[in-house]
């Protein structure tokens, strides 16, 4: 099958029962996406499938043919970080870091559809992602701060264009 991950096309051989998570981690060695529970309960495996927040541990790889997958590696890399990644670093919105990629993807999915989320909308959108270190207060602040940065970037872009 052909899987589009982070704007790159990959030809893979997958079994019918292979999850998107195992295709990403074991075949493409994109290990930023984590396995925490394997039952869609913890959110560590969150990725975007055609922009939609998806638990990759509950998604069959074969079903993603023709869809566009974004993982944390595709969100941004050193030198070209996503505003969310920058905000997570600056506001210390991570501790052990294991749930961080999933938190970032949940936040990215939120900001893609809502560039000015309220505190309640952030809490609601991020409640499917567990963090046992309890980094939640800083996660909430970082998402808010990244939203502000994204809006500033968009308005700059508009004024540049005009």
């Amino acid at each position, binding site marked *: 099958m052909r899987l589009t991950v982070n704007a790159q096309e990959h030809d893979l051989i997958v079994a019918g029962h292979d999850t998107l998570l195992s295709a990403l981690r074991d075949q493409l060695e994109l290990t930023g996406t984590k396995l925490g529970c394997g039952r869609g309960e913890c959110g560590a495996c969150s990725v975007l499938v055609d922009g939609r927040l998806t638990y990759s541990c509950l998604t069959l790889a074969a079903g993603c043919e023709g869809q566009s997958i974004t993982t944390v590696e595709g969100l941004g*890399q050193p030198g070209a970080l996503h505003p969310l990644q920058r905000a997570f670093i600056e506001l*210390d919105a991570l501790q052990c*870091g*294991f*749930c961080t990629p999933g938190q970032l993807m949940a936040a990215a999915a939120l900001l893609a559809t809502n560039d000015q989320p309220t505190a309640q909308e952030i809490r609601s959108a991020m409640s499917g992602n*567990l963090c046992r270190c309890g*980094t939640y*207060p800083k996660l909430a602040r970082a998402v808010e701060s990244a939203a502000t940065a994204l809006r500033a970037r968009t308005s700059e872009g508009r004024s540049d264009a005009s």
Partner: protein
Amino acid sequence: MPRKPKESAAKAQPHPRKRFVTTKVEVEGREELKIVELPDIEPTPWDEDAQLTIVGTRAIRADALEKVTGRAKYTADLHRPAMLHAAFLRAPVASGRVVRLDLTRALALAGVRGALVASDVPGIKHMGAPLFDTAIHWAGQPLAALCADTPELARQACALVDLDVETLPHAVTVAAALAPDAPRVKPHGNIPRNQPRIATRGDADAAIAGADVTITRDYRTPCALHTPIEPHGSVAEWIGDDLTVWESTQGIFEVRSNIAQAFKLPLNRVRVMKDYMGGGFGAKNYAAANTFTAVALARKLGKPVRCILDREGEQTDTGNRAASSQRVTLAANRDGTLVAISAEVTVAYGYSGWYASPAKIYHEMYRCPNVSTRETFVFLNTGAMDSFRAPGHVEGAFALERAMDALAHELGIDPLELRRRNYAEVDEEKNRPYSAKHLDRCYSEGEARFNWTHRRVEAAATRTIGARFRRGVGMASQIWGAGGGPPAYATVRINPDGTIDVLTGAQDLGTGSRTIFAQIAAESLGARLADVRTVLGDTERTPYAGNSWGSITTASVGPAVRVAALQARAKVLEAAAELLDVDVSLLSLVGSVVSIAGDERTMTLAQVGRKLGEVMIMGQGSRGANPQDTAICAFAAQFAEVEVDVETGRVRVLHITSAHDSGRIINPTLAESQLEGGIIQGLGYALFEERVMDETLGLSLNANVHDYKIPVIGDVPVIDAFFVASSDVVANHTGARGIAEAPIIPTAPAIANAVADALGVDVGEIPLTPWRVLALLRR
């Protein structure tokens, strides 16, 4: 231009004192006599007036970039060539005997490469029982491991094992284990031989009999599970006789020692590494079934083996905070002065584990001449108890601090005032001074920031007849041994390009130790923080440091890092003096630049390094002894406001103020992150977290993260967590004490006290799930 005298013959400095001394070392309340290697230099302590420019700043977490880009490699992220995967077949009952375990069908499955049973791992123990024991002591106990090309195949192979089990009667609750005809969990009975454990000072019974006021209350706490989002896991690889193990662990040297002992290997043939790990909270201190299985299978099959627990295994077979019941009696004078504390404690211990004492805090928290506690740990057919963030104190603080509120209510005294009236100026348990104690400032600063009196009045105003949402306010205090201590070592190297490596065998669990060691080294050395990198978690590259547990890492390893950096600084300045041809006493080093008093010439560390070429500037540091007969503790006062929906029984925590005294704070941002995290874990313990056992089946009903509820972002209140400023130079020369465990201890009692305030009823049991709250309201 000042020139140094030319005849600088190196003077041998005789060591002024003994290098090795015997000293008392204390971890989590347990004292041991140990030999300590004293450092070569005794640095001037960083007191409150010390002018520090890097220590104490909010430096960015050193590994944040790795973590937000997905590049940080955790144990399960490692791919070794030709690696195989292991999975466990686990006991389906709580007590029984394996009658038949036939691997034929499992091994016949294509892609299955091998298996392990008890006879493959003689003498190796897991959670107090022989690994793969044919006698079943708890549900979820490993009975065999299967190894295959993929984790899915390994799991599939487990399902193909023909297993016949003879089921025997079990006891998974204290009541069942103490019944007259109870099944024996251990051959000698269900209570350890040396129990109950009794600890007394003064005469509590006499004091209770003569007291103005006494109250007696019963409290119960649940069995809580660590639930790290990254499960336990190991990757083992043999190359010839050399074994490398990548382990998600809080203690690389401990795991190395466990492996060497289990497989009878020389320590220098075992390398244990841990770069990143996804949470431990006390569950990852030792080698366990996953470690031994990966090592044994890798040896047997001649290929690297990865063994990562699945979530059910993580929630049933990696330890827990045991449930407790505590009957507490407090006796006081009319003015609130405590005259006696007495407690009878029963711990639902499980099959084995770590004896964490809920009773200990009764002896430590308040000034009281008469204290008596009796503790009984009851063996059960459930998974082992293990250390879990402030083991024992979390359970004990819930009961003691609830009882203090009940006493305050009885006496009509403000709960905060009652605690102030019973302030312990010294450690009464061991009759010794504290290195420093600013709990009084935690009370006053917390009181002010929380607006205690005003909030109490406001909350009371919501409690009108017929009101659906009732607010309440509560507080609690805590104490926790947080002095750290020896042994711990660090090496600081200056590379030819002026960059600096700090090497120490500690772990960073997400606490920030990588970052703060770099800060301490940069400050001590006079280097730019950006040039310093900390290398942790490799028994082969780094000198010894102990487990990251017991809130010890900063206070144990930090001083060793400082000594190593100071030694490297002294050496690099001597080298620079030679290069500049000046006396070393004229040189200073700040921001990675060497300058000369009365001379405009300067050299950067990179310039010095280039001139020196391959000369290695290296400092070695060790952690000296703690002050003897001194208690070194972290203190905190915590304030909570809750809102209870009396129709649904739902408790919402609105606000937490948490004031901490942990000595000098190396990095306030990272320290506050730990406080917030501890508070949120405590909130889960107060409101949701509880392993539920089916008494008839003997099985856990919620061995997953859907039904075992940990807090999510939507549960989190406004948290104002902060430190009262201080530097504890009696404790050690950095002035820092531990942080990690302090914030979880007072959280549940502060919340429960607030719920009791909101409802006007006694709250004796957590977690305060809606049905428990509704039951309280029906009373």
